[in-house]
């Protein structure tokens, strides 16, 4: 019965784009060479296009052109079984971060990651999802955060940050221009970003707020392939934003959150938003270009930048982080494959929430490590996704490396022109 649910979902979920992808694949195997899981395990099963075999089989059996003719001749693949789904669960959930790097090397331009997403939807329908992900989804639905951050905790964190930087932060402020949502990982591990944002926005004169009803942008539904969960989580942000009558929602330093909020959200809730979604890097870059952010001094360390897949390759925010880095860093060097071809940290797409995948995740990091090692003496790694940051920090420990990992927004905040300077300048100008 569970397999039948998966089959039905597979059939429903395949549209013309997905069909074109499955029809066009010539089994050339190039995608394997772009996959950090394949490259670090050397296992033929980890070839990206092979990971979606259940979807392809079902499509060929039920939906492809000539399917009925082929069925009559006995030339279609057998119906997929529950055993098969269980076997494939490892390939669909543990060894794919939906980073989409394989598309870059595909002669047919196939978006394999999108097909993995659709395959995951079938797995959700069949109830074959790793426990780590279902648990996170449950917490997100029940509490409001996959990592279990409750509104009270949020208040406490915001309060703390507000005191630390000495700037009042007003929660649930109706009529603010910008609504800031954060990633679960930021609230758990990297909440300094709230103070950093407060300082930057104060200098730039941005009117902003945080909602206590929708403070998390992390969308576990997008990661695990559960459209219902995804819709509910995006819906919360949409409701909160519209309730607070904000003009913009700022997507945080989090990869899949951006995909969820900006690109898939309107399609999930079934209508365009009343507000606009802007990524924090885009926004900061814009403020900088408008001269609203003034920095002083530069970081002299030799740093490099890790591109979060969903923000860069699948989000289109490529130049902005570089522009920001250049204003605050003197020692910024690009790693090989920087930009759209960057290698994933190994923990995106729900892999980091899935304890079963830990070995794969740590091994996949070897590809990232090589990029970093090839640069020689790197003193810090900058990134703009809290999940990447957490995954990389863990892996760095595991590999016995020593390398601080920094969030880009925090780095920018560190080099903001101090208020006293600004005040003096203002006085001078008046005089």
């Amino acid at each position, binding site marked *: 019965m569970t397999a039948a649910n998966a089959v039905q979902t597979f059939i429903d979920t395949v549209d013309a784009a997905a*069909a074109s992808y499955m029809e066009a694949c010539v089994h050339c195997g190039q995608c*394997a060479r772009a996959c950090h899981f394949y490259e670090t395990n050397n296992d033929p099963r980890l070839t990206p296009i092979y990971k979606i075999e259940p979807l392809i089989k079902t499509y060929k059996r039920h939906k492809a052109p000539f399917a009925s003719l082929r069925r009559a001749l006995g030339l279609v693949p057998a119906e997929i079984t529950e055993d098969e789904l269980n076997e494939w669960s490892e390939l669909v959930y543990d060894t794919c971060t939906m980073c989409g790097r394989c598309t870059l090397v595909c002669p047919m331009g196939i978006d394999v990651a*999108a097909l993995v997403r659709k395959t995951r939807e079938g797995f959700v329908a069949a109830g074959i999802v790793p426990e780590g992900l279902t648990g996170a989804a449950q917490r997100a639905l029940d509490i409001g955060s996959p990592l279990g951050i409750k509104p009270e905790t949020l208040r406490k964190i915001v309060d703390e940050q507000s005191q630390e930087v000495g700037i009042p932060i007003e929660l649930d402020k109706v009529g603010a221009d910008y609504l800031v949502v954060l990633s679960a990982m930021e609230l758990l591990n990297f909440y300094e970003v709230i103070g950093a944002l407060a300082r930057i926005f104060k200098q730039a004169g941005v009117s902003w707020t945080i909602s206590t009803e929708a403070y998390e942008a992390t969308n576990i539904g997008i990661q695990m392939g559960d459209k219902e969960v995804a819709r509910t989580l995006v819906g919360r942000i949409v409701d909160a934003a519209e309730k607070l009558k904000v003009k913009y929602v700022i997507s945080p330093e989090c990869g899949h959150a951006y995909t969820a909020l900006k690109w898939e959200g309107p399609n999930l809730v079934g209508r365009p938003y009343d507000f606009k979604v802007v990524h924090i890097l885009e926004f900061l870059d814009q403020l900088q270009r408008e001269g609203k952010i003034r920095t002083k001094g530069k970081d002299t360390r030799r740093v490099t930048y890790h591109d979060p897949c969903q923000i860069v390759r699948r989000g289109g925010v490529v130049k902005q982080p570089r522009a920001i880095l250049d204003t605050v860093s003197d020692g910024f060097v690009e790693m090989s494959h920087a930009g759209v071809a960057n290698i994933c940290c190994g923990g995106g797409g729900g892999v980091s929430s899935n304890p079963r995948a830990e070995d794969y995740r740590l091994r996949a990091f070897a590809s990232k490590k090589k990029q970093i090692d090839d640069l020689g003496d790197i003193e810090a790694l900058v990134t703009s996704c809290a999940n990447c940051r957490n995954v990389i920090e863990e892996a760095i420990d595991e590999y016995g490396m020593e390398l601080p990992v920094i969030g880009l927004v925090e780095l920018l905040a560190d080099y903001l022109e101090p208020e006293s300077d600004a005040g003096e300048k203002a006085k001078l100008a008046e005089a």
Partner: protein
Amino acid sequence: MIIVEIIEGPLWYLAATVFVVGVLWRIIGILRLGRRTDLSVPRAAAIPGAVKALFRHLLPHHSFYNKTKLHLFAGYLFHIGLFVVLFFAAPHIAFLEERVLGFGWEAMPRWAFIVSAQAAFAGLILLWFRRIADPTMRQISDADDHVGSWLTFIAMLTGCLALQESNVSLRALHMLSVEIWLIYFPFSRLMHAFTFVLSRGYTGIIYGRRGVTP
């Protein structure tokens, strides 16, 4: 030689019909599935993205040249060779002019035709052996991959065996193998000759809106 007459007459029309109708049916069958309107706010236009993707995927991203050089070399050797032989060899132009299009064009010299055929053979041989001599390729290959490769090889081989152009039965053998190839085409992965436009196009449309062309 009744067999030769059948091969060059009715069977040819049958094969050509199956090819044309089958290809159209399959493409329409894919497009018919449709896509829901994307409600997200685009950063850039979709159609330029599609055009960009069509060309961009002629080559892998430059990060992968080193890892994919063998496949890239063999793939282009085969495809360019086959394309040139197919459309610029004198006997093929004559056939197309007489039987299909009603007009012809300048053929290339015979030596260039032979060299192109050799390139096509070299590429195809490399591609097929890559498929069977690599565990990853074997893992993802199915019967269709091999049948398609072999039918193409046989069609090319019979063509090369008939190069003397002095033997009716050799010509008919080439015709027959091409007809089998044409009939097999719409039901197989050989369709990638057309579907590549769709897959690259959709990726270009979807990501073009996001301002990237992966």
